[in-house]
């Protein structure tokens, strides 16, 4: 490449990595070249299976069983790493190139104290005494912001939260002050608030230590604000590389364009469909000839299918395409169906709502005692939540993990029963019913899960999976059941051939369609979708989101969408509730929440979302610290321990929900907006007028 070698720390040229499987060879990385300059952060983005992690692992020659570099060169400060004997390579790993992984839970040895794990590379590479290594370990743990490192030193990984564990993993990587840090999805497993903290930490450390970083991620929002340059990978190839700003504003490759177009943004027009990439990435054993994206590309011609385009361009903006595009896509077909089909959102005739939750409480007991287990404490998962959902309405529920949103979802469908308060469907307390009446009522409340692979029986064919709800409810003759299955299958966009197949034969996106079909089989009144797209890749995610949005509008089924992804919730939901530690802290429509947030927590949550737009200035870390234990929630306002606006009153008195406009309520003593006219009056329920 063009830059003078003096400034580049890492130079990769023509790197190809293969993985030998029993019957085939996966061409995981094909002819990849890039360089990272001193102090630079290079982003490597792409969907799962595109070879980005294999590229990262190739740099340290840590490839999985059967993986090997077939050709190419990796130069670290001029030293060729490919072909270097393992013994030499070991002096470089963890010393000059370090790596951090996605899942800190499984990446730390569960039976070794964190202190010893941090000391390990120091002892190895610095050849220092135990005592010096201990001092250095304390120093780096302090550097990565682990509170009280001396007291935490002998903790085991499971005793730390996910965010702190990730800090420990970063400490291990930085212990020997490497020149290059390979960060493979460093924040994917974390909550947005913790993600913002970890990304800020990485930024800060890069600056202070003058380290170069290869940031591998699927999240365009994460790279947008944190990288100098970005490589986009597809099917083992780099298809486009440019400066971050250039890539987001003037991309030339249709894949880059499609990838960015398929992410719902916070100002996404809810009337418009999301851009989708049809099909799936190709099988790389062996890869297809021609342009690897051709099969899914809207601009592909015969030329694309026959000849592979070279990575070419000027001024550091390279792309591999015969028919390049110019900048982001102009937006998109509308999704709103004709008025006749659209179901209006409304309270039912008698003025009641379809689904009403009133002061719902769920606590999980913590027991102790030698022979007789008595309850000594409880985990307050849901502490008095009041909300309603109308027919045809989609209600979004957001919050960090551990805030009680999943438990609330289970309470709605009756997978958990409340310890206090009531859940009513059409004015009836459904789960107080017994026997046949209860079984009949369960039809109306169905659930769609996050992980379709885990929630579909692996030994049942799709036909049996879809028939089961009908059989349990004894609905229709066999022929009527078949007809119903066919109809629903068509609605979720699966072919009839799917009926004879088992769940493992589908891709992730198709499996999630099966999960949705199962939820729709009984034509429920309310569907609870818990993280419906979190396990899916960006391009597949937009297909499912479009499908859910279309079905919402056409069928008018009310739904509750639970997600940590605020953009997803905003796109799908008419109204949104923000939960914090078992409490509903704010409730309103999308604009209330995203533009006129009254609660400091809502505001902070929105500010921490990584926006896929490099022009957006990063806010400083909006929330520090972590979610307090739900066993002993803070007195008064539960958010006060992390709130920048907290005062004495917040600890003494729990704020009640107050109105901030029609249908917009928040529970805060010192809100960001002036409360509406009914200022002091507590509002139990946020009716949209």
């Amino acid at each position: 490449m063009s830059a003078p070698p003096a400034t580049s720390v890492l130079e990769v040229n023509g790197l190809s990595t293969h993985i030998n499987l029993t019957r085939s060879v996966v061409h995981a990385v094909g002819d990849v070249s890039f360089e990272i300059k001193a102090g630079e952060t290079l982003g490597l983005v792409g969907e799962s299976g595109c070879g980005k992690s294999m590229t990262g692992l190739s740099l340290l020659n840590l490839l999985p069983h059967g993986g090997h570099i077939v050709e190419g060169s990796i130069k670290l400060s001029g030293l060729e790493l490919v072909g270097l004997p393992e013994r030499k390579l070991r002096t470089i790993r963890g010393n000059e190139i370090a790596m951090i992984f996605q899942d800190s839970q499984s990446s730390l040895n569960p039976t070794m104290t964190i202190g010893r794990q941090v000391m390990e590379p120091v002892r190895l590479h610095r050849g220092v005494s135990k005592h010096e290594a201990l001092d250095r370990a304390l120093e780096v743990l302090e550097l990565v912001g682990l509170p009280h490192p001396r007291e935490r030193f002998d903790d085991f990984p499971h005793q730390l939260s996910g965010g702190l564990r990730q800090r420990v993993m970063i400490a291990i990587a930085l212990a020997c002050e490497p020149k290059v840090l390979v960060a493979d999805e460093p924040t994917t497993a974390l909550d947005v608030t913790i993600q913002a903290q970890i990304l800020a930490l990485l930024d800060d450390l890069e600056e202070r230590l003058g380290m170069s970083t290869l940031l591998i991620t699927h999240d365009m929002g994460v790279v947008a604000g944190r990288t100098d340059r970005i490589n986009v990978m597809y099917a083992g190839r780099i298809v486009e590389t440019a400066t971050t700003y250039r890539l987001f504003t003037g991309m030339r490759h249709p894949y880059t364009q499609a990838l960015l177009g398929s992410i719902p943004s916070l100002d996404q027009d809810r009337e418009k469909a999301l851009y989708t990439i049809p099909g799936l990435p190709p099988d790389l054993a062996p890869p297809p000839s021609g342009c690897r994206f051709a099969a899914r590309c809207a601009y592909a011609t015969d030329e694309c299918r026959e000849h592979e385009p070279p990575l070419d361009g000027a001024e550091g903006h390279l792309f591999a395409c015969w028919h390049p595009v110019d900048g982001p896509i102009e937006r998109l077909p509308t999704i709103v169906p004709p008025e006749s089909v659209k179901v209006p959102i409304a309270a039912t005739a008698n003025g009641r709502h379809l689904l009403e939750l009133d002061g719902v409480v769920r606590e999980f007991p913590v027991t102790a005692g030698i022979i007789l287990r008595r309850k000594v404490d409880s985990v307050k998962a849901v502490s008095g939540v009041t909300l309603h959902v109308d027919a045809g309405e989609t209600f979004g529920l957001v919050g960090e993990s551990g805030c009680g949103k999943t438990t609330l979802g289970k309470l709605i469908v009756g997978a958990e029963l409340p310890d206090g308060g009531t859940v009513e469907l059409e004015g009836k307390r459904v789960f107080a019913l017994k026997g046949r009446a209860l079984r009949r009522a369960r039809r109306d409340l169905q659930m769609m899960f996050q992980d379709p692979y885990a929630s579909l029986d692996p030994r049942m064919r799709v036909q049996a999976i879809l028939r089961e709800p009908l059989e349990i409810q004894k609905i229709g003759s066999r022929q009527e059941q078949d007809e119903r299955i066919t109809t629903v299958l068509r609605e979720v966009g699966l072919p009839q051939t799917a009926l004879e197949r088992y769940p493992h034969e589908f891709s992730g996106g198709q499996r999630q369609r099966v999960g949705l079909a199962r939820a729709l089989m009984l034509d429920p009144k309310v569907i609870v979708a818990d993280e419906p797209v979190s396990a899916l890749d960006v391009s597949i995610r937009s297909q499912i989101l479009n499908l859910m949005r279309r079905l919402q509008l056409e069928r008018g089924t009310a739904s509750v969408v639970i997600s940590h992804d605020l953009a997803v919730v905003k796109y799908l939901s008419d109204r949104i509730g923000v939960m914090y530690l078992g409490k509903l802290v704010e409730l309103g429509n999308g604009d209330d929440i995203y533009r006129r947030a009254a609660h400091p927590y809502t505001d902070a949550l929105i500010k921490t979302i990584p926006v896929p737009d490099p022009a957006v200035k990063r806010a400083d870390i909006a929330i520090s610290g972590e979610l307090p234990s739900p066993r002993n929630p803070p007195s008064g306002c539960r958010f006060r321990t992390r709130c920048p606006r907290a005062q004495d009153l917040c600890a003494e008195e729990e704020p009640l929900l107050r109105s901030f406009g029609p249908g917009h309520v928040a529970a805060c003593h010192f809100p960001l907006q002036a409360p509406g006219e009914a200022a002091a009056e507590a509002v139990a329920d946020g009716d949209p007028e």
Partner: protein
Amino acid sequence: MTGYIIRRCVAAVIIAIGVAAVSYALLNFAGGSPVYAALGTHANPKAVAQWNRVHGFDKPLIVQIGNYVWNAVQLKFGYSYKQGQSVAALLDENAGRTAYLSGSALVLALIIALPLGIAQAVKRNSVSDYAATAITFTLYSMPAFFLGLILIQFFALDLHIFPPLVSSNVTSVWASFTHPAQLTLPIVTLAALTVAGFSRYMRSSALDALAQDYIRLARAKGLSERVVLARHLVRNACLPMITLVGLAIPGLLAGNIITETLYNYPGLGLLFYNALQGLDYPVLLAYTLIGGVLTVTGNLVADIAVAAADPRIRLG
């Protein structure tokens, strides 16, 4: 932790009592009282009734069970009329030798199986892995008496390295210990049967651990493969083995019956075998009870050992 152990011990005692009661009842249905062992098979009915009354075997079953359990709690297991000794004395005499045989076999099996399993996982799908698998499966599928006979034929009768039977001089644990050649074949027989199961389990457990991210992170630190295995793999891979070993302890007792009989080694197994031949009910009962107690104890010890070895598990 203490509370948990107390709770589990109480449960263990209750289960052991249950085992005693159920075994007594089953043997009662099978044959009833040891009267014929005491008086001979041709004793006249009057004498039998008289004997039963004196020894309490005419009482309702529930009372007999109660008596048996109450005596068993005090370590009184009745009297073996065949052997002319109290069962407790018989157990006392033989248990040590069996414990020595089983214990040595277990230790030997672990010494072989743990490194073998890890080595197979590291060199998975190689020729040596397949060869080790073939050998362990052959052993796994072989009955104890058959393996024992082969070993006797080969090492004792053909090569004259080891004696074919344990000499009758070996009468104490100490004697077993000081005459290693005498016990080599029985220990090897018992161990060989256990090695197969252990090493298969260890292999899959090590494979699981090898696939973990912390192994990859350990390599990314620049540690040598040997250190990665020794420091990060072994302890984690052995955790599931603890439970398996705990559950294998009562199994060794069962394996002993055949091995001890084959080599004529005077232990609990041989005692049981002889008792079975002579319908010596008190001994059979006691042996069954020992099996039950060992199962419960093995489980309990394994659970506590896992908690001690794995910081993630807190018993409570």
